[in-house]
């Protein structure tokens, strides 16, 4: 039987397959995109179908500053990854912290907007169809930002403990792939809610 288990002698010269972390994250992003698509479809389908106010046109204000914050965090996390690959840990941590700060600022912006909508305009998730779809879609995105921030913070803690070096570069890249996805989703949500939806 040993003949069966012994592999054929010639091994192909180069046998390199993609990194499993990256493949896994790509699949997760694919699946998440489908979830967001359904929420976006629901939002668009119900635009202008609310039976009572307030309407998006009356109460929404475009969050330009916080959008810039979130989108630029994609840039900072990209630089952080490059710095880590080159072994510059200090600079990596700095850019990583900057990314977290920008993400947290965005989340603060969402919170502020929600507070304004709830207390000034009386718009809650059960007020009308706009409220239901708006809070669900923006909330789903904010949930993903929060999850991303938690994961980024864990990396930061490990980094401060001196445990993140160039050998972890591939793993950090997987996380930054997720963060880019969260930013890309915001571009879609922003377009749907603040541009098309009004």
């Amino acid at each position, binding site marked *: *039987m*040993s*003949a*069966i*288990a*012994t*592999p*054929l*002698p*010639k*091994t*192909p010269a180069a*046998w390199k*397959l*993609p*990194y*499993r972390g990256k*493949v*896994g994250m790509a*699949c*997760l992003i*694919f*699946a*998440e995109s*489908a*979830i967001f*698509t*359904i*929420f976006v479809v*629901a939002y668009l*389908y*119900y635009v202008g*179908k*609310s*039976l009572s106010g307030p309407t998006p046109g009356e109460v929404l204000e475009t969050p330009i500053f916080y959008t810039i914050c979130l989108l630029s965090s994609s840039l900072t996390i990209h630089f952080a990854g490059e710095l880590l690959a080159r072994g510059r840990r200090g600079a990596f941590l700095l850019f990583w912290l900057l990314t977290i700060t920008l993400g947290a600022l965005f989340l603060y912006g969402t919170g502020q907007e929600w507070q304004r909508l709830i207390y000034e305009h009386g718009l809650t*998730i*059960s007020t*009308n*169809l706009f409220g*239901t*779809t708006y809070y*669900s879609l923006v909330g*789903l995105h904010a949930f993903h930002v929060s999850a991303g921030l938690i994961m980024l913070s864990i990396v930061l803690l490990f980094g401060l403990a001196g445990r993140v070096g160039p050998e972890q570069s591939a793993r950090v890249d997987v996380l930054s792939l997720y963060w880019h996805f969260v930013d890309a989703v915001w571009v879609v949500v922003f377009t749907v809610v603040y541009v098309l939806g009004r």
Partner: protein
Amino acid sequence: MSSDVIAIQTAEAAGRPWIQTLHEWVTTVDHKRLGVLYILYALFFLVIGGIEATIIRIQLMRPHNDFVSPQVFNRMFTMHGTTMIFFVAMPILFGFGNYLVPLMIGARDMAFPRLNAFSFWLTAFGGLLLYFSFLGGNGLYGAGNAPDVGWWAYAPLASRAFSPGHSSDYWTIALLASGFGSIGTAINIIATIVSMRCPGMKLSRMPLLAWLNLVMSGMVLLAITPLSAAQLMLLVDRYLGGHFFDTQAGGSATLWMHFFWIFGHPEVYVLIIPCFAFASEIIPVFSRKPIFGYPVMVGATVCIAFVSMSVWAHHMFTIGMNSYANSFFTITTMAVGVPTGIKIFNWLGTMWGGKIQFKTPMLFCIGFLFQFLIAGLTGIMLASSPFDWQLSGSYFVVAHFHYVIVGGILFALFGAFYYWYPKITGRMLNEGLGKLHFWLFLIGFHVTFDLMHIPGLLGMPRRIYTYEPGRGWDTLNFLVTIGAFVQGIATLVFVANLVVSYFKGAKAGNDPWDAWTLEWSVSSPPPVYNFASLPTVASRRPLWDLKHPEDPDSRYE
């Protein structure tokens, strides 16, 4: 083999306390053990779902029957459908995928073993939640316990107003949990196949089972997620007072139907594609020929995956879509039949001129071929929207999709059990009992589901609690129930075979079927580490190459 086995197993042979064994199984991250857990878990629910089906059939056995109350009847068909799809078919197919994919592509485990365990326990938790509803579903309202809204929970049935208490919540959260489990496993299977293949295992040399599981997992990512999203919306509606599916606030009941069927129809293909995979492995081995048209088989599968994503609204012809939508979904649905037909011809082409061995796995696969063809043909009938207007919501539809699920999926699954049981346990399943199981089940199946088409054509609606005598449905319904009992007895024969053969079956050896894929190169059951040294392959049939060095497949690639 002896030179390659590392002596880990001898340590296991000694008698250990059962609690230690249990602990090992609960905390395992080994793809083979998780595969077995998936399969056992699904078999348990298969029995429960089968009992529910039997209750439904006894109730419908004769007119004006009152074996159970109407409320219980509603719960039974809801739980039967939900259980069979989410807690039998999905986990059992994931179980086989989990067990076989790493072995067949020459890997030592899945890409993410802990995610694998997490996904399994999430799915298991989902099933537990669903059945806990029998105890906890009452809530404060004194309302009914288990979910009774049908397996598709059309709005507004599942809204607070019409489904008080917690039964619909258990249904929603159970499906959400098992859905996330499915997504995790799908990600895992894809990452395993993309990143863990052994040297030489190019995509063009991968066993069809791995290919088809890859396609199926891709579909899971795209098909289960809309259901998860819709469940989240339903939860927002039920708990936070949202209006997604609340027609009184401008919401749309149709939107739920769309979201549900965007999941629901691809789901059928998610279930049938792994069964195609079983047939594609079993038929060549028992025809003693390599699979006919390998690249076309892969292409047809990918094609099915694409087209099946745009057919969902053929479940909704009767809700009054416009004629363009009706035409579109009629055409796409019929188009799915083309790649499926290609696959059927390829299996026939594989058998053509082969030295066919009629062992039990092959018998089940031949049954699968014929029945799946008929199921496909009634599918084409229902795809035509004017025909569907007449028969939507009738027993004809029930007969059609049970033909797919029982006649297609379950038959292929039984074939897979008989084929891979020796690898998983090291013992052969009894061939005599296997043949008895096959013929009994075949007879029971045809008595039940062939005849079930007719009351549907005569106008019997699905989900009715009872019916008036003298409409021409009485005898047929009686016979359908008799057939269900025959299937039940056949299933008992199968379970008995599984148990008896585990203790008394003939030793299987590494390769009882003289097969060609890598899982048969290791011992039965395989060692924990699968391969002592990673194999290197040079063709689609690595074991053929090893057994026939004078004429290896690799020479022709």
